[in-house]
């Protein structure tokens, strides 16, 4: 996804709603894994990669005009302490 974002970021916009639906499923799954303390290396790697993708998307200026992504980002990433921490780690790396 990071490659698509770097090659053709605006071309993703017609598909953002479908992607955000999948991202929502991912965050639910990751949240369960974190809360159940199932944090094996594979899960952590997946979550870190996911956060890098969200960070790359959030850097696209026009993405804030997409209500579904903005809603997902505010509700699922920023408001979840653990995810926010992981997101900030991805943003700083």
């Amino acid at each position, binding site marked *: *996804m990071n*490659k698509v974002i770097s090659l053709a970021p605006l071309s993703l916009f017609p598909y953002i709603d479908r992607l955000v639906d999948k991202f929502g499923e991912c965050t639910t799954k990751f949240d369960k894994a974190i809360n159940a303390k199932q944090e094996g290396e594979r899960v952590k790697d997946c979550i870190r990669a996911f956060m890098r993708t969200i960070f790359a998307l959030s850097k696209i200026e026009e993405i804030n005009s997409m209500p579904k992504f903005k809603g997902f980002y505010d509700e699922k990433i920023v408001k979840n302490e653990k995810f926010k921490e992981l997101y900030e780690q991805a943003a700083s790396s």
Partner: protein
Amino acid sequence: MAIIEPFFALLSESDLNLKKAVLESLNSIAHSMPKPLQLINPAFENALSDACKYKPELVKEIELGPFKYMVDEGLAMRTSAFSFIDTAMEYILEKVGINYIVDQILMGISKYYNKPMLIIF
């Protein structure tokens, strides 16, 4: 650039190991001489999309003494398929279109923490 076309045709074969080998070879080609990748055709796109799909019929239960493990025999091929898409992205994106790429991404984001998910993200 006819040398690459047999590779494209081989991806439509049924043998999983052959498909995986073809995808790995195409991955190497994508790294070293990517220009022929622009010759991809709709048949190859369909075969590649099929290689990206999770197929429950390929998941087998293995008994090891008292324990039972589920082994996904299609995982290696899916990993190779997504690796190829990732490597060849900038050469095939214009040909296959963003809709095709997004469809594969959506297919690959699964309920299991596995290599295809890592490659996708």
